[in-house]
């Protein structure tokens, strides 16, 4: 029986799709059977990030409307044969799917796959409700910006209300130089407000943009990038391992605090 994990944020453009793609590839690299669901109907782009756009025949709406079986709509990844994508429909809108349909679909998929990762659209409306409907775990992505953190907080509240408790936090696009200058929110500032467990911090890294454009998520690159390493660490934490945090910048007090939060100290 697999796990259904939704990747959500509230605010748009903070890295949900990038995270979904990287975690999916990372989990598949470790041999897990993974399905990525693009729940961002009408604005799909997980297929582009995965480099699979030209292989789409059926999509999520086709599946819930019964035009095809789920298996027929799943696109196998080019490199990792335990990784599949269920693309979003580009020509429909979010109301084409209901939460009940998503719940049913996720329940069906987790019979056969180890991880079902749902890439959530931005916002808190129908698309969000669809994306979280079938999930039992949630990863919240935020950037170190006041507005993104505010939206993450809103999402955490909505997840609680939907009985999707204990979400984990990913802080994306951190810039150590800016934090040091006091121009960017610190990890500690963010955790103080959101008060949920941190599962990873990803530095702002141009390699992510380059790899995204190539359709080859950075997690698989053995080029020594910190962002790739950060994603590999998150993949392992998602699987339940405890992995020490990357030292993105030297500030022992912060990292000892993080370790305390994650129960990794000592």
């Amino acid at each position: 029986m697999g796990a259904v994990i939704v990747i959500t944020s509230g605010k748009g453009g903070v890295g949900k799709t990038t995270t979904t793609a990287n975690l999916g590839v990372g989990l598949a690299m470790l041999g897990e059977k993974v399905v990525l669901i693009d729940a961002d109907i009408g604005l799909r782009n997980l297929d582009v990030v995965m480099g699979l756009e030209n292989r789409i025949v059926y999509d999520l709406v086709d599946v819930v409307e019964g035009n095809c079986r789920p298996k027929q709509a799943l696109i196998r990844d080019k490199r990792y044969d335990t990784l599949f994508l269920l693309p979003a429909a580009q020509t429909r809108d979010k109301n084409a799917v209901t939460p009940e349909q998503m719940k049913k679909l996720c329940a069906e998929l987790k019979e056969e796959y180890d991880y079902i990762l749902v890439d959530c659209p931005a916002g808190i409306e129908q698309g969000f409700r669809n994306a979280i409907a079938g999930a039992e775990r949630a990863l919240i992505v935020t950037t170190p910006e006041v507005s993104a953190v505010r939206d993450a907080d809103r999402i955490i509240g909505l997840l609680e209300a939907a009985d999707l408790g204990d979400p984990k936090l990913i802080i994306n696009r951190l810039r150590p130089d800016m934090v040091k200058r006091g121009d960017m929110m610190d990890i500690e500032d963010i955790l103080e407000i959101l008060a949920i467990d941190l599962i990873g911090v990803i530095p702002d890294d141009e390699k992510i943009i380059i790899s995204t454009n190539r359709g080859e998520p950075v997690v698989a690159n053995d080029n020594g990038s910190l962002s790739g390493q950060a994603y590999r660490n998150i993949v392992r934490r998602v699987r339940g391992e405890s992995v020490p945090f990357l030292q993105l910048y030297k500030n022992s007090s912060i990292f000892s605090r993080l370790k305390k939060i994650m129960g990794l100290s000592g």
Partner: protein
Amino acid sequence: MLVFDENIAEWVTSVEESMSKYTVEFKGTKEGVTIYCQESAGFEEILLDLAARLRQRAVFFGQSKVRIDVGGRQLTEAEQERLADVLAQNSKLVLAGVQTSATRPAEASLARRRGETAELKLENCKEGRSIVIKRTLRSGQSVHYPGNVIVLGDVNPGAEIVAEGDIFVYGTLRGIAHAGRSGDRSASVVALRLAPTQLRIASVISRAPDESSLPNQPEYAYISEDRIMIAAVNTK
């Protein structure tokens, strides 16, 4: 300051037991000292006793404020002056007023129970219904309540509490808090860390200063002269 009051009260309790032969009785309160005159005693007797007791304890009382409770008696102006004279000659206590059983504040009969360390002032007590929220209020969540609101957790930016009474946050208040929303200007907002986006009490609104650091001690906000003032909660 409170410590001092408690000492008086303790002392008074022990005196009440052992020295009830006196016709005057001292009670310590937060506001100072009240001296009660025995109903049955004659006025001259009271003046004598008062002088004696004051001389004994003058050092202890220092310059506290004192009220003299003469019970059911109606003192003439001359008698009041003599009371004041005895006080002035035998102590440094400052006479704040003379009261009778009719003008006695309601709390005088309260807190006479044994073991009570300080008298509670009824006018400082507020009664009303309350709701206790045992979790953090996050962005987009709001609580409207026709009474006092107590939060055991934080109130995050983007969250809102609107109460007809007081608001207590046992955590960090960063969102919006509106106490006394139906016009109660005596309402207050208390938080372990008070850093709200905006505060409202009754119809007075204030916003956080643009640059402010988070206090690391409990504070409360209240209305004073049409403005919202913030003060530290004195935990000593």
